[in-house]
């Protein structure tokens, strides 16, 4: 029934099967939209947040999804910016459309959740009008808005590649023209997103009243500014590759050459190694020098559910281990190890965002204060799950109706 919309020469599952999948996703999205509407109407008292946990599930998921969406800007930077000097990076062209779609859904999804996160959503525009140039959040507001616009501009030519739309000549010409100037947008996005990822790291790092989160740094930027950028580019392309792997599994088709995964594995291995070495150095300085200077020891930052396991899981299991696998040529050759390492890499960066949003503020600072535990309610989990369902929805629609993978036809000819 929708065959005319499917790219020529490509096979997709039947419309009823796809319809059922859409129905499931719309169900989750509907549930999340309902929960979000309750938050907006009844106020944030329906969430698990309180005056000790100003940040919770919304912020954690936003930070994580934006870091993972970094595949878009970083792959774009490598492909459009550096491949002229390093021709082997041209391989990324085979996955760049998917990276753009992933970046688009991650950023637009995060923006939707941000509306729920603030107590006065109708005043969200005050961030532009009454901007405090000293606030890291101001930098976030400006960068996320600008980059979301850039991602929309980057996504439009991908949409215009649709078979039916291409039949309309002006649309085809417009789409191709956009393709021609895409390098400019990709590099603009890179610039914006570097700052954006950094300012997200700066949000926690500048809090000099919160020794768990606070980091010294370079000029006005705390070390977390740089660590967030590095961790985002060390995990974003891995996330794109993992989604591509899942699409291949679900569709039963080869979508990109194996060499693309190998290249991403190699790039992520190097970046993750650099990140994890710097993260260990940062943790050592924070725990052994900075905190004792403020009268605290590392043990003061870990308690109950927010125990030392977080540090071991983040740096050891989800940091050092995947970095070693990705640097090891035999590790990259095995699909199990390669995709396992991608998964651990993504889990580690998500865990880092969790640690910097929740345990960092659960730890008491005043000696006579107490630890508290944050438990999100369904009004926080439902919208975040809906956001993930929205991501799956757009990726599914894009895969079905757009020629995302230039090599798909050739790779599945047999």
């Amino acid at each position, binding site marked *: 029934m929708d065959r005319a919309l499917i790219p020529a020469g490509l096979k997709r599952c039947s419309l009823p099967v796809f319809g059922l999948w859409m129905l499931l996703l719309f169900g989750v999205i509907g549930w999340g939209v309902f929960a979000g509407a309750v938050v907006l109407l009844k106020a944030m008292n329906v969430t698990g947040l309180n005056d000790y946990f100003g940040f919770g599930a919304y912020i954690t998921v936003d930070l994580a999804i934006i870091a993972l969406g970094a595949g878009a800007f970083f792959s774009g930077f490598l492909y459009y910016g550096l491949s002229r000097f390093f021709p082997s990076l041209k391989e990324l062209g085979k996955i760049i459309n998917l990276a753009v779609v992933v970046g688009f859904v991650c950023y637009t999804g995060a923006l939707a959740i941000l509306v729920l996160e603030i107590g006065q959503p109708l005043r969200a525009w005050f961030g532009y009008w009454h901007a405090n140039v000293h606030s890291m959040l101001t930098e976030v507001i400006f960068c996320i808005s600008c980059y979301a616009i850039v991602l929309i501009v980057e996504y439009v030519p991908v949409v215009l590649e649709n078979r039916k739309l291409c039949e309309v000549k002006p649309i085809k010409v417009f789409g191709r023209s956009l393709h021609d100037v895409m390098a400019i947008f990709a590099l603009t996005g890179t610039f914006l997103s570097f700052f954006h990822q950094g300012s997200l790291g700066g949000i926690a790092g500048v809090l*000099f009243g919160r020794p768990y989160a606070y980091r010294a740094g370079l000029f006005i930027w705390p070390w977390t500014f740089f660590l967030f950028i590095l961790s985002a580019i060390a995990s974003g392309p891995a996330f794109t590759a993992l989604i591509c792997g899942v699409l291949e599994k679900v569709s039963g088709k080869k979508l990109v050459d194996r060499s693309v995964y190998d290249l991403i594995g190699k790039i992520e291995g190097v970046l993750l190694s650099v990140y994890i070495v710097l993260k260990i150095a940062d943790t050592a300085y924070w725990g052994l020098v900075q905190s004792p200077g403020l009268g605290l020891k590392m043990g003061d930052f870990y308690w109950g559910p927010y125990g030392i396991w977080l540090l071991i899981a983040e740096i050891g299991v989800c940091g050092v281990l995947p970095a070693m696998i990705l640097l090891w040529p035999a590790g990259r050759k095995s699909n199990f190890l390669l995709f396992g390492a991608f998964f651990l890499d993504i889990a580690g960066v998500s865990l880092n965002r969790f640690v910097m949003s929740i345990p960092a503020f659960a730890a008491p600072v005043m000696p006579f204060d107490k630890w508290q535990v944050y438990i999100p309610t369904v009004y926080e989990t439902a919208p975040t799950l809906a956001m993930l369902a929205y991501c799956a929805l757009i990726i599914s629609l894009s895969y079905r109706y757009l020629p995302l993978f230039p090599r798909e036809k050739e790779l599945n000819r047999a």
Partner: protein
Amino acid sequence: MSEGRHAQGGVRFGMVIDLDKCTGCGACSVACQAENNISFRPDESNKLRSITWMSIFELNNGGHYPDYKYAFLPRPCMHCDSPGHAPCTFVCPVNATTRDENNGIVTMVYPRCIGCRYCIVACPYHARSFNWWDPKWPEPMESMLSPEVSTRMRGVVEKCTFCHHRLLAVRSKAYKDGTDPDKATYTTACADACPAKAIVFGNLLDPQSEAARLSKDPNAFQILKKLNTKPKVYYISAHDWIRKLSDNAVA
């Protein structure tokens, strides 16, 4: 708006609380609630969500009977005087909370607050509260609210203002009387209400003020001094175990 450096006029309002005099009666807290139109709910048992500008912490020495000792620590906003900005003011993305460099008071602009709660996580003293619900008062309390203080809508952050409206009132009076408004002094509702006279408020830069004199007492201390937040609320206690609880120390 707070600028990169202090204007440092001749006024820096601050508070000194003598913990050896404090009985933990809560009069300061109640006076603050009434003075500043702080809303409350029928069930206030969840202290992580109730709005209290002047919270009272119970301190103890960790000993067991008969060595057990306790004290109470009233905690208003510290109106931090850290260089450039207080921990909360420089993180606010919309300049809804700023420090008035003419007197050091950290104020709130409620109609501008977007409720991001970044200031809440920035404050190590937990001096800020979010309005989780619409503010409501039982009949007939709503008609008895102070006209001097604006009520806050749900979804915004609020905190102790050192009864800023009282400062505005004395400054207006000074202006009308033809005297220097910058020399006008006042006191806060909590200091007024304390039956033990444990709370003293005044200009910390005025050597004649009692607050300035007490802040230099050998037993005076600030909370979390190592963080360099430079709180303008001082505490006094002759007990070592209380003073030790003022800051973290690696054993």
